Each structure stands twice: as C-alpha cells, then as structure tokens.
C-alpha cells in the first residue's frame, strides 16, 4: 500500500508498524520523532501503531539552527 513519507510517495507492505517502517529506513535507535496525519506518535507506541493506506507520515530530527 502507499503512504506519504516526508512529503514523498512511499510503498510499504500491509500491516507495517511505525517501528517496522523506521527500521526499514535504517533509522532504528536514532533520535527522531514521528507524526502521523499531523498527530504525534509517541515512541512508546511505535511498535503497536499500524500504518493505513494514505497515511501522511513525518519523521523528523534535530539539526543545527538558530
């Protein structure tokens, strides 16, 4: 199924969790935050939150800034 990941089309298998998505991107263990359809998905819920077709996912991190 298709989702929007950081503004781009992205294909995942059905029933993929946020945790599995993060791992498939090689980002496991990194300091990041995830938003799904403009709601925060707390880290504690990544393993239990399943993606649905059309979900808009944002994965962000901290970078240098003023």
């Amino acid at each position, binding site marked *: 199924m298709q989702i929007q990941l950081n503004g781009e089309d992205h294909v995942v298998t059905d029933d993929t969790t946020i945790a599995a998505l993060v791992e498939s*991107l090689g980002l496991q263990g990194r300091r990041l935050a995830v*938003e799904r359809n403009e709601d925060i998905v707390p880290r504690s819920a990544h393993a239990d939150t399943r993606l649905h077709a059309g979900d808009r996912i*944002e*994965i962000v991190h*901290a*970078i240098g800034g003023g």
Partner: protein
Amino acid sequence: MTDSSAPTLNNPVTQVAGDSPLIVAGREFSSRLLVGTGKYKDMDETRSAIETSGAEVVTFAVRRTNLGQNADEPNLLDVLSPDRYTFLPNTAGCYNARDAVRTCKLARELLDGHNLVKLEVLGDQDTLYPNIVETLKAAEELVADGFDVMVYTSDDPIVARQLEEIGCCAIMPLGSLIGSGLGILNPHTLSLIIERANVPVLVDAGLGTASEAAFAMELGCDGVLMNSAIAHARQPLLMADAMRQAVISGRGAFLAGRMPTRLTARASSPGAGLITG
C-alpha cells in the same frame, strides 16, 4: 587538589561574580548568552564554539530526516550532551501558527517531554520579520498545551505585553533583522519593553559583534541569543569567546550603573596643589 569549579578553557567564566542567575520558567542559568547551532562548518566547530561561548542554552531546528542518505551523519543531539546543555527547539522556518505548533509538539517528542521552546513565526523570506498575528495565535495554543514559550518578536512594547499576558516565559525582541548583523537599531523601544516586562527579555537576532551584545546587556536585557554573529565570524571560536566576555561586561556595567553624562568636562584630578608659576 584541583578545584572543579575553577574556570578552564572548556569551563569558562560565564557570569558576573555574585550575580543572580537568569531564571526562565523556573530554570536557572549562570550564562546570559544563548546560542544557536546553525551555519557552522561542521559538528566539531559547532561543539567547540558553543563550549567556548559558555552558553548553557542552545537552540536547534527540527527538520525532516534525510531518508536513505547521510545515515551515518552525527546527530546534533548526540554531539551536544543533554547533561551539559538545555536544548531549545526553535520553530524557525515556520510561516504560520499551525506549522509552529506542530514543530513544537514534534520537538517535545524528540526530547522526551521537554517543554521549553523558542517560538518564531516568520512573515516573509526577505526580512524574516515575525508575523505577529500568527505568533500570538501560536503562543496561545502552546501555552494552553503546557509549553514554556520563549518568543521571538518585533521590538513593539504593546506586542511584548500581549505575549507576556498570554503566558510566554521570555520575550525575545529582535535587535535588527535575523542574520543582518546590524546590531540594535532601536534601543529606545527595547528599553520600553525591558522596563515594563515581568519576564526575562532577551535580544534575539541582529547582533553582529561584541560591543552590540554588551550594549544589549547595558540596556538591561536579561540575556542575548545569537547564532550568525559567532558562526559567520572569520574565526568563530575567537568570536564565541569575545561574546562571552561582552555579555559579562555589559551585564556588569548594567549592575554597576553608569555615571551620569554631562555636556561639559569635569577633571578627574584635583585642582588643589597644582604647581603653577
């Protein structure tokens, strides 16, 4: 025996001796210089400049993770120790209240519930001037959601009062446009804000060199926040040290209280006992 509190290169003096700390939303800081982490050559220079500045509060930006590239790039939050620094996520780059509020919520998740944020809602790309209508809206939402909001704003005393009434924990007017290095263009409105505020006032944006940071502190600012002035100096580490000293000097002069000005001279040496022919 070494005194662990003695200043060293990596642990520089950060305050006027005997001064009270800067208190923002109940958090105490000895340094009144807050710094950004953008625009440095690399992560090493970022870390060294921040250490040299003596800053305890460091701002950062929240951005989409680069997918599939630079996976091994060091993460800012891994380079700067959370034991040593208070992180201040910044909504820079947001042009409306909705994006700014989303960014703050993502930052809170990123920092495991840490709720101190710098709210900055911009008006246009040429001036990066704050959009006050959207700033007020975002401040209301964030305060209601439990955030401690340090707010970037124009140097308008009425807006500053409104932001304080909403519950912002620090008012941060610009000295001049972000990244311009033009210094403090309207010290009089800044003084009005300082006189009337019951929360800390920090100049955020526009400072270009050490005398301007000292001037901000002499006016009675509780602190200053800067990024470009250090990062874009020819030698960032030297400038970081200069800014550290300038903020301490300006604060010292403010606490000391400057002499009155006069239009005519007054000799420093006594007139009596002069050898005159």
